[in-house]
């Protein structure tokens, strides 16, 4: 099974590896935009005055931008065939999802979509066949 495989299997496995990379780039880019939006003007994201870190828009903005940049950087190494981009990719996506869940009350729709995208990233990173990275 290791050397001779049906062609469609290769295509699917290689496709998931590429999909994982693309999804990470997408989520990373979204985080950068989201973070910049918060840094530029946080008024649209203040639904609850007393909620956790409401007075720390700068902190949130920087955390989101940093998460995004790290995700993009990691995604660029995904096709190298090494293990570490995959492991750190899962860790970053999980961190992103947890951070988004915390941030969610500030803007629920964005956070929900990002969490779903993170879950897809984690699925793709965990399940792609490592012969295709």
């Amino acid at each position: 099974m290791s050397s001779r495989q049906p062609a469609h299997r290769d295509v699917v496995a290689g496709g998931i590896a590429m999909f994982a990379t693309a999804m990470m780039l997408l989520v990373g880019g979204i985080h950068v935009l989201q973070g910049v939006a918060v840094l530029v003007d946080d008024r649209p994201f203040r639904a609850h005055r007393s909620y956790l870190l409401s007075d720390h828009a700068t902190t949130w903005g920087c955390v989101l931008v940093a998460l995004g940049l790290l995700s993009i950087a990691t995604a660029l190494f995904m096709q190298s065939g090494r293990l570490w981009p995959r492991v750190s990719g899962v860790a970053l996506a999980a961190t992103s999802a947890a951070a988004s869940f915390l941030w969610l009350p500030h803007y629920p729709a964005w956070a929900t979509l990002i969490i779903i995208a993170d879950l897809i990233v984690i699925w793709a990173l965990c399940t792609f066949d490592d012969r295709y990275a």
Partner: protein
Amino acid sequence: MSTLRPEPRRTSTAVVRLVYFAAAAMVLSGAVHVVQGTAALRGDEVLSTRPTYLDSEPGPFWGWLHVAIGVVLVATAVGVLLGSPRALAGAAGITVVAAVASFVFIPFYPTWGVVSLLLNGTALYAIGTVGTTGRWAKTGAARPPQTGGLPR
């Protein structure tokens, strides 16, 4: 499927990879439950109160329950990674409990409850798929035959 045949090689099997996903989804779900529980314990104003629902506000009981569920989820995920069939069975159980707790939480904060329910559902799907492959129960997922330790 011959990919599931135990054979010593560098690449991990589809089941082993799904075990990682199940564990990751459980850890994420655990984190999310701790967040919900903490918000309930702090009496955060984001949580809405509905006069006739439960005790009208998520007090210490629901707070600690969610924190406990989160901790157990993470602990069980570690057990699943270590290849324990019992942990896998426990994972299915705690994920169902967590999903029910998420549903109950929905009126307090709908988006959190729905997202948390979604995470638990996803984890349960992965756990179920791993559990029904059969091979996992014999060898332990994170310990492929002959190699030992974490698969690469």
